């Protein structure tokens, strides 16, 4: 029977078990990546339906998302390797089986490290997204409170009245002015009149545009503020699920550590059980035969 090379495997198994128990920190490659989100001033002006898409698109083009997607690809590849190793272990025996089991443990540990790093990046992304939505919500609330303020309401009414007075008297004013101060119509007046018709057409097109519809939650039309609160709740739920996945990763790491310890124990017992078939020469009685001649 071929003795498996336990001496070679034992130190690496010990390291593996300790590392698995301590749940090693993610690799430092993710420390530098970040996501600087788009300004909430711009997001506030978007239709509610496009707000989430704009944030998502901005996130996907960030270095943080790029690193996250790389880690996801790596984890998928590792998952396939784990499946192959598990199938190979079932078919192997002896030293090959031991070696495969060792590789299986190492691959599982590396998979957990990758997932841990990915979770950390996902957490950072979600926290940033929550910050963006909170900022948008604050701005919407501030605009609403300003709009409801009596000083602002009074000012807007006066401004609207002044605009109506201008539009009602503009022809009369032009007639008197050109009578008093003869001359050509100014470029501003001429071009303003030409653009006015086109502006009206554009405004009508915006009214009927499909992207300008109200935000919907469960088929019900909601205000922009309610929709942003809905997006915020979704992001918070994602963060809560991430905490649960973190717990799962902890248990998986513990299992890897226990598997490593079990394999190590197995190898040590094989070592001690294998060897000479004859009497133990360290026992004195067994050595008497060498002294009786």
């Amino acid at each position, binding site marked *: 029977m071929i003795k498996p090379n336990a001496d070679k495997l034992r130190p690496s198994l010990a390291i593996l078990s300790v590392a698995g128990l301590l749940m090693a920190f993610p690799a430092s490659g993710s420390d530098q990546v970040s996501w600087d989100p788009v300004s909430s001033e711009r997001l506030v002006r978007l239709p509610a339906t496009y707000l989430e898409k704009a944030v998502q698109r901005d996130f996907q083009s960030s270095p943080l998302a790029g690193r996250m997607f790389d880690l996801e690809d790596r984890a998928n590849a590792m998952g396939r390797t784990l499946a192959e190793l598990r199938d190979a272990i079932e078919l192997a025996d002896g030293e090959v089986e031991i070696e495969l089991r060792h590789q299986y443990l190492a691959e599982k540990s590396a998979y957990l490290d990758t997932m841990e790093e990915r979770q950390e990046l996902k957490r950072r992304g979600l926290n940033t997204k929550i910050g963006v939505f909170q900022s948008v919500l604050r701005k919407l609330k501030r605009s609403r409170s*300003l*709009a409801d*303020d009596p*000083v*602002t309401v009074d*000012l*807007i009414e*006066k*401004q609207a*009245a*002044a*605009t109506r*007075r*201008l539009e009602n*008297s*503009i022809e*009369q*004013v032009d007639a*008197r*002015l050109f009578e*008093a*101060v003869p*001359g050509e119509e*100014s470029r*501003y*007046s001429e071009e*303003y009149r030409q653009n006015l018709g086109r502006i009206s057409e554009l405004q009508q097109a915006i009214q009927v545009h499909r992207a300008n519809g109200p935000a919907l939650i469960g088929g019900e039309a909601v205000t922009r503020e309610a929709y942003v609160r809905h997006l915020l709740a979704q992001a918070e739920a994602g963060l809560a699920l991430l905490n649960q996945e973190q717990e799962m990763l902890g248990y998986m790491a513990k299992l890897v550590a226990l598997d490593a310890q079990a394999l190590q124990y197995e190898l040590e017992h094989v070592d001690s059980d294998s060897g000479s078939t004859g009497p133990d020469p360290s026992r004195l009685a067994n050595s008497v035969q060498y002294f009786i001649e």
Partner: protein
Amino acid sequence: MLKQSNHSTFLTLFFLVCAACGTAVAEEEPRTLQNMERERSLMVDAMLNPGLSPDQRHVQLATAQRRLVDLERIVLRDPNIVGHRSVVVRRAFANYDLTFLVHASAENSRHLTDHWLTEMGISTATLSRARKGRR
């Protein structure tokens, strides 16, 4: 000497903070309204300048009037001014006849100077009743 340097440091910081606050407030004023009010003040200056001859005054007022009519319309159509709560904007829209001089005077079929004087409460009767003395 130490006391003096602390005092001067405090004063310097105080003025810097005041200047920063002033700058912040000034930067909030809509540019269109600032331009219109600058042009209007130059026109009023031309109205009241005793050093101008009648012909000179007429030419300056006519030029200012043509320029001001567009500026008033730009202000009234500026979407950035709607709901802008600054003191200057609120004061501007509190009195249309005094702010938008050219349009208001044309509406009321008055000469620009007559209109402004009327809105300011200055007439022949008030001038003849005026007395010199302490307020």
